[in-house]
């Protein structure tokens, strides 16, 4: 059953990606141009390793776009979505209308018919969700208000595809190239054949199904699956959920991307959110890569060679027109300080939906074949230019605004750099977290035990289930902007691995670590983690102090003795650590770990003399001096504090 062709194709795609993407990233271009270039290289006009099937690959890889919308949905809590409704519908609506009008007018002036001009305007008013989101997130611009506005507009465009698809047949009827009577309307089947009320009912019920599943059922499924401890089953259940919602919405004639977006929004407040993100992220990345490669591979260079100037001119015109329209809208909606330029530059290309819409128009014979291929060419090239436009934004526009702003008022919006992550929320992390929260700090809590997550959630803690040992998980939790990471997980080797990873990638992040024992503490020191606390030491000293009280010390004396011991231990630790560094191999053998620690500690203790810090409270020396002065002998009890036998 093995399909050697499949292996070969897969190998070519992967090889191309592996070779070009790192180079493109090194050159500061981001991954998207890398993928596109890879597509061009393996495509029919350079190496010719892939050809016709790249279209099939593209369809398959469009699933990456669907997954991406799911991830965006996960980032959008319903409350946040409600807050952005103005930018989604206001800005989005304005954008599609204005851009369609401007481009349509330009097309009409170039001599297209009215219905063709309208179709061109509508098709080219859309922007590429895939390219824009990928590029924005790589450059960390999604949270920028310009980037946010761009995402809102993209969401509206995803919605707008549906009415545009409905409108195109009408345009064909109004004034197609061929006689309207000969036009065979596309046979209606399935969903579209049902009466309107049934359609509406189905749409509502699918929507409800997604919401109910996401809101009430998904949590139990995830808990059940996560409880089994099988990561791949968890991945499978997440994929099931995404594909299920995509299928459901596609079946009722809506965009599958929209369906998964809604599923994402519904799950945004679910405590498994981080784990969902981490699971989907690599799959999405790979599929999107494939998608970009297939876009690159489908650039028709023959057409380009025939009319290079015309095509480049049209691409340039498209970008300029879209940029102009977007610029006006951004200013109208109050984007300032260069954010309007980011917004306008990022959306100034055509959309991958354009391929579908153009080929649909082609079958409806709104355009002749030549116009269609020309349009596709323009769409692809405008997409390929987007990363370059964003580089212009980064290198020219932003520095210019930064320079200007520095001359004016300083930015008054402070960064919310007060983020604290607690990794491991068991019996140890719980106390740390409670203390921090009791003092008004907000914390993001990660824990890998689903049972804990459920119980703690009932008591109103905001925590997320996930495998803390996976770097992606920490990144999803926002380790990049965090101020402090409290490493309180029980698995000591894993904790060291995470600390090492964090020190390498985020050397400025402060780590507060829980250590199992002395040597574990030393391992942390060696990694450069200074805030380390042994999990048992303080409790043991506390119990020792209470024992001293029972044995006859008064409470203050016992507390004082415990304090002395604690501080004494700290100096021993410093000494031991030096010793341990010099002779690490000697200590490492696990079986002898505790006895080694014991003998080393006791040895150091014996050599270390405790200065009696409470000496001044002892009157022995004063009494002796007085006795010498007066000639009397000094008193009987000397030196030893009362209570010591």
């Amino acid at each position, binding site marked *: 059953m093995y399909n050697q062709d499949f292996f070969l194709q897969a190998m070519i795609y992967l090889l191309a990606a592996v070779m070009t993407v790192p180079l493109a990233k090194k050159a500061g271009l981001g991954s998207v141009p890398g993928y596109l270039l890879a597509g061009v290289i393996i495509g029919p006009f350079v190496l010719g390793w892939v050809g016709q099937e790249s279209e099939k690959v593209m369809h398959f890889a469009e699933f990456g776009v669907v997954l991406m919308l799911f991830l965006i949905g996960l980032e959008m809590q319903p409350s946040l979505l409600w807050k952005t409704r103005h930018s989604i519908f206001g800005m989005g609506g304005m954008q599609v209308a204005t851009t369609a009008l401007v481009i349509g007018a330009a097309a009409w002036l170039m001599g297209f018919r009215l219905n063709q001009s309208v179709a061109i305007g509508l098709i080219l008013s859309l922007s590429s969700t895939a390219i824009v989101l990928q590029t924005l997130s790589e450059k960390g611009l999604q949270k920028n208000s310009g980037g946010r506005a761009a995402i809102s507009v993209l969401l509206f465009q995803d919605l707008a595809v549906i009415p545009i698809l409905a409108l195109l047949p009408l345009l064909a009827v109004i004034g197609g190239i061929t006689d309207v009577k000969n036009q065979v309307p596309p046979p209606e089947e399935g969903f579209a054949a049902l009466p309107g009320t049934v359609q509406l009912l189905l749409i509502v019920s699918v929507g409800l199904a997604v919401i109910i599943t996401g809101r009430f059922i998904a949590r139990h499924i995830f808990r059940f699956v996560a409880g089994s401890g099988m990561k791949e089953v968890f991945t499978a259940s997440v994929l099931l959920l995404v594909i299920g919602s995509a299928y459901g919405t596609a079946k009722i004639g809506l965009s599958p991307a929209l369906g998964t977006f809604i599923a994402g929004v519904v799950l945004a407040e679910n405590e498994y959110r981080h784990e969902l993100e981490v699971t989907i992220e690599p799959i999405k990345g790979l599929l999107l890569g494939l998608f970009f490669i297939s876009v690159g591979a489908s650039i028709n260079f023959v057409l380009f060679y025939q009319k290079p100037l015309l095509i480049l001119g049209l691409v340039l015109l498209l970008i300029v027109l879209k940029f102009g329209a977007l610029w006006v809208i951004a200013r109208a909606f109050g984007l300032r300080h260069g954010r309007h330029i980011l917004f306008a530059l990022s959306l100034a290309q055509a959309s991958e939906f354009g391929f579908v819409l153009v080929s649909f128009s082609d079958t409806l014979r709104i355009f002749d074949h030549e116009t269609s291929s020309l349009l596709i060419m323009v769409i692809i090239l405008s997409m390929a230019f987007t990363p370059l436009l964003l580089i212009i934004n980064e290198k020219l526009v932003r520095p210019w605004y930064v320079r200007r702003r520095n001359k004016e008022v300083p930015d008054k919006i402070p960064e919310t750099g007060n983020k604290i992550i607690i990794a491991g929320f068991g019996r140890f992390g719980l106390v740390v977290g409670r203390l921090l929260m009791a003092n008004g700090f907000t914390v993001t809590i990660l824990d890998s035990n689903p049972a804990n997550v459920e119980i703690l959630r009932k008591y109103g803690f905001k925590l997320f289930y996930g495998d803390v040992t996976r770097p992606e998980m920490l990144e999803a939790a926002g380790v990049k902007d965090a101020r402090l990471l409290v490493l309180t997980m029980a698995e000591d080797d894993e904790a060291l691995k995470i600390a090492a990873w964090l020190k390498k990638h985020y050397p400025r992040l402060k780590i507060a670590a829980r250590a199992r024992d002395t040597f574990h503490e030393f391992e942390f020191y060696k990694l450069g983690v200074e805030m380390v606390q042994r999990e048992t030491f303080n409790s043991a000293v506390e119990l020792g102090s209470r024992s001293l009280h029972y044995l006859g010390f008064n409470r203050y004396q016992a507390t004082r003795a415990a*304090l002395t011991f604690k501080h004494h231990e700290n100096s021993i630790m410093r000494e031991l650590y030096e010793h341990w560094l010099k002779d690490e191999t000697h200590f490492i053998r696990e079986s002898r770990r505790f006895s080694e620690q014991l003998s080393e500690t006791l040895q150091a203790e014996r050599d270390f003399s405790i*200065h009696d*810090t409470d000496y*001044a409270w002892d009157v022995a020396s004063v009494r002796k001096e007085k006795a010498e002065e007066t000639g009397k002998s000094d008193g009987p009890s000397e030196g030893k504090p009362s209570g010591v036998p």
Partner: protein
Amino acid sequence: MNKILILFAHPALQKSRVHSALARVARDVEGVTFCDLYDRYPDFFIDVHREQQQLLDHDIILWQHPFYWYSCPALLKEWMDLVLEHNFAYGRQGTHLHGKKALTVLSTGGSQSVYSRKGDHHYSVKELLAPFHQTTRLCGMEYLAPFVVHGSHLLTVDEIEQYATDYRKLLIALRDGTLPEVSWQDTEYINHRIPS
């Protein structure tokens, strides 16, 4: 050039406008060691050896604190109890602090006029500082007139800044030995003797 040690004691520095300002300028003056005792010993476990060594390393000792019940906050008292040991600070062999200068830098909520026979506090600030004065005498140190910030609750930001500026000048003058005679008897507060 004299080396100055400021032993600062305030259990809630984050709530004090006056001491935040004074501490800020003190940390900036070259030749001044600023030691925040509550920060160094949050559990009141004072490292006596370290503190004694630090005293030996300096020529002029300042105790900077708010006036709590006519005295210093608890940790500074603990510091005195433990660090000024017999045979270190006093006693036949306790001559290590001889010849050093000391002074108190303090803030009070009340104005200077209420620290008088006619006011609520009956005694003057200098009378109330008698225990500190006597401590320095027993240790063989010279106690200078205090630097006092009165009426701390009602001071404006500008007034606090003026005190901070004076404090900086005082520290520089102490360091460089440019201060005029400021003996305990002849001077009410050192505030009035700072060269501008």
